[in-house]
């Protein structure tokens, strides 16, 4: 599963990345987690609020740290 966290480097973006990493570990799901910090690349996804989460090329979340339950749902698919 390819997961990207979009964000310009604020605290919430770092928290999002850490949280996804943690949930993936707990669930034993193998993920390729990357952080997209370049603003041009972020805008290419069409999101306006960060942090945003992209899974396999699809934006699933934008604006704010996602909840643990939400992340678990994404990983289950």
């Amino acid at each position, binding site marked *: 599963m390819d997961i990207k966290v979009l964000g*310009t480097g*604020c605290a919430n973006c770092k928290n999002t990345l850490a949280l996804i990493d943690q949930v993936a570990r707990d669930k034993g799901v193998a993920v390729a987690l990357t952080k997209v910090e370049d603003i041009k690349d972020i805008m290419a996804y069409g*999101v306006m609020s*960060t942090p945003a989460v992209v899974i396999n090329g699809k934006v699933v979340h934008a*604006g704010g740290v996602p*909840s643990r339950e939400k992340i678990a749902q994404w990983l289950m698919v």
Partner: protein
Amino acid sequence: MAFLAVAIIAWLALYNLLNPAAEALVATLPIDRNSHLGGALQFFFYDTPKVLMLLTGVVFVMGMINSYFTPERTRALLAGRSEGAANVMAATLGIVTPFCSCSAVPLFIGFVQAGVPLGVTFSFLISAPMVNEVALTLLFGLFGWKVALLYLGLGLSVAIVAGWTIGRLKMEAHLEDWVRDMPKMSAGFDAGQVTLADRVEAGFAAVRQIVGKVWPYILAGIAIGAVIHGYVPQDFMASFMGREAWWSVPLAVLLGVPMYTNAAGIIPIVQALLVKGAALGTVLAFMMSVIALSLPEMIILRKVLKVRLIATFAAVVACGILLVGFVFNAVL
């Protein structure tokens, strides 16, 4: 629903208990209530829980309201409108649209890309951080509703007029080239199904995120405020932040620029200054400047704006704030 009603009643009951509780707490300490320390402690023990409770309540409600106004929907509302009325709308939407300063750049580009005029985008960008529920709640809690309303009205006016002025200046050429060259896109949005339970959940999430983040600032602010309350002599501030000193307003605005804190940290301090004789206009100008004109935000915006446009933005907003300060000091 039932849960919400119970929560509201519990909240009100607790809120009314605060002042007697603070008095009782200070009375148990071996300190004279009328001494400097006693006054400072009473202020600290009463105002801290009061402000935190108000904030929790308001942030919860705003969290629910915010779930109706995502940035995507706001953009769809503003796209394609002509200036003037759209500036007013953008500034007003700035109050209810959730906004974090780290989102300023993507938001800015997203707006411009969807055809929201530059001046309207600025109206939103000025209003969103400056006129928000945290600032208004603190003003209400510490100064009363009149000052809170004045701040709301003036903050909106600065955002509307400054955005409109920037629009008139036709600065589109001063966007960074890559922003101008980005493909235009439509501003449609797709809201999905949001239930009341989701909105309540959004309210709790907002409390966790916002109150969780600002409480140390409020605590520190009130602690400093309490010291000023207890120890700084009455009318001490009047000499250099008072109404007679005309230069105090520009000085307050200048001082505010390099300061980087949010409304939460600055308002308790400002309140204490006010009690000690600082003029309201000067104090409001200082607050607006700290929140709306921050150096770190300008550095972030530099990624999308050329220096001239940033300078224009800062100058126009500074003029607006100066005007607010002077008018207030003259009228009140």
